[in-house]
């Protein structure tokens, strides 16, 4: 359902914009296998998105990070103390916002920036802790290209950029 909604947003955007083939370099901290790049390539304004178009001044950075919450930091610290006191029998409970950020830059200047987040709570064993994103947050990350498509459609600077590209590099 989520994905079909995303597809609808992308298709409706395609009807609105007759976008030029603007080359955009994709830079991300997500694994390629997650398919974020492939989803973004379906957007009509990002058809020329690629990781290896090094020369383009237009870069799309897709990154993620955990952001502590006020209650989460307290819970994490307390459970860490308890876990240490019980020599690892009790788990460490973490509550964070998992934030996926999209930033569009032209010649290093940011022209659009959006973040999407989901609150997560995890119980981890102190001996087997890793910092890889969980399946839950990765599933959430897969839904963000559709949200980004909707938000990007509202950025006048991106539309101006596309128009400028069409002017200087008209389709042959």
């Amino acid at each position, binding site marked *: 359902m989520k994905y079909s909604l995303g597809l609808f947003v992308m298709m409706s955007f395609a009807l609105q914009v007759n976008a030029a083939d603007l080359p955009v370099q994709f830079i991300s901290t997500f694994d390629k296998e997650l398919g974020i790049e492939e989803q973004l390539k379906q957007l009509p304004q990002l058809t020329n998105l690629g990781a*290896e178009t*090094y*020369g*383009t001044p*237009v870069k799309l950075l897709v990154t993620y990070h955990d952001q502590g919450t006020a209650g989460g930091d307290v819970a994490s610290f307390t459970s860490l103390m308890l876990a240490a006191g019980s020599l690892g029998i009790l788990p460490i409970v973490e509550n964070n916002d998992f934030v996926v950020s999209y930033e569009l830059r*032209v*010649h290093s200047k940011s022209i659009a920036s959006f973040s999407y987040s989901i609150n997560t709570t995890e119980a981890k064993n102190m001996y087997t802790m890793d910092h890889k994103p969980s399946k839950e947050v990765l599933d959430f990350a897969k839904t963000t290209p559709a949200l980004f498509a909707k938000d990007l459609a509202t950025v006048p600077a991106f539309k101006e*950029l596309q128009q400028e*590209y069409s*002017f200087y590099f008209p389709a042959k």
Partner: protein
Amino acid sequence: MNIKFGFVLVCLALLVSGCTATKKNPTALPKGVVVNKSVQVPNPVKLRYYVPKAALDSKFFASWRGLWVSPGQGLAQGVDAAFKSHFSDSALAKFNANDEYALLVALAPEWKPGSGVLNFELSYKVFDSKGKVLLEGKETDKADIGDIAQTAAFYNTALKTTQVISVKVLNALNPSLSTFPELAKIDSVAKETLADMKKPVSTGTGFFVNKNGQVLTAAHVLDDCLVTKATFGKKDSYATLLANSILLDTAVLNTEFTQVPFLPVREGDDTVVGEPVANVGYPLQGVLAQSANLTRGNVSAADGIPGSMGHLQFSAPIQPGSSGGPIVSDGGELLGMAVSTLNVTSLIEKGIVPQNVNFALKRHHIRRFLDKHQIAYSNSKPDFKADFRTGNDAALATVVKLSCYQ
């Protein structure tokens, strides 16, 4: 006994690190700083403050912690919090909007990190709506750097010094809507009175494209400049932006120079790979000679790297500050404008040491940009038989140094 002693030590360490990592309350004034009872707080007078963009954006990579530290973020938040605690309508001045002010405070911050201590100097000038300087001075503070990953030390020093300045403004001027009734547009302020005109934050290169003194350059040379100066020979002129393209990284400036020599654009769009070219610029100002630097090379490729927009590759060496310099043929015709070089650092990390791989915007796109903005230029037929000195002389005669002040 040892366990108790260890426990006390841990508590003390937590306390100390907690202090250095905690942001101070903006409503609590530093010791000995008091607002006069006759002064209205929060004050309704419209106050705007100016902080150089370079200071607000400053950040560095703390390699020992493996993270980015942002003094600029701490500065921005500290200054804002201090003024907002006294003035109900205070904000960072915006020069590209119809922003207005009754009192304008120009701040010039400087960090001087010492051994474990952060020294901070904040110079200030206070202007009224007519541009008259009402107050000026300098406040200093120092703080324990503590955990540098937190911006608390930067925030706290900025907060404290700005609080002192804010209280001085309140006590000395006793501002009210009746004593400061007039508002002025921020755009109307003489920017050279706000900027630090002693030393440019960056320099770059440009060149004349017509006899009217209009200068073509790379747009990034002008990034966030409050004031731009063009130096031609031994003469200086203020320069103002006439047109720019964020996509092509190209801009044209108006200057006060007239009847100047200029570079004609070569007719046609063909790129002759292997053609000898000269590049002139003002690179590494403060390190190299202040006169123009000329380097020679060839057009190495008709295109740039994948995804690049309208670039040709050339081999004449360039350095930081060369951006915006002309790429000139032996016949003295403009072939392109230096805009970038290969990212050597990232390639060296991969074991590759590139040499003389530089990129220029092709003349076809320069011409289109000038046409779009109706900026005069002239074309010239290619002269492949000319002596290289003809091209060198043409480039040297038309180039200007651009200095950016904030």
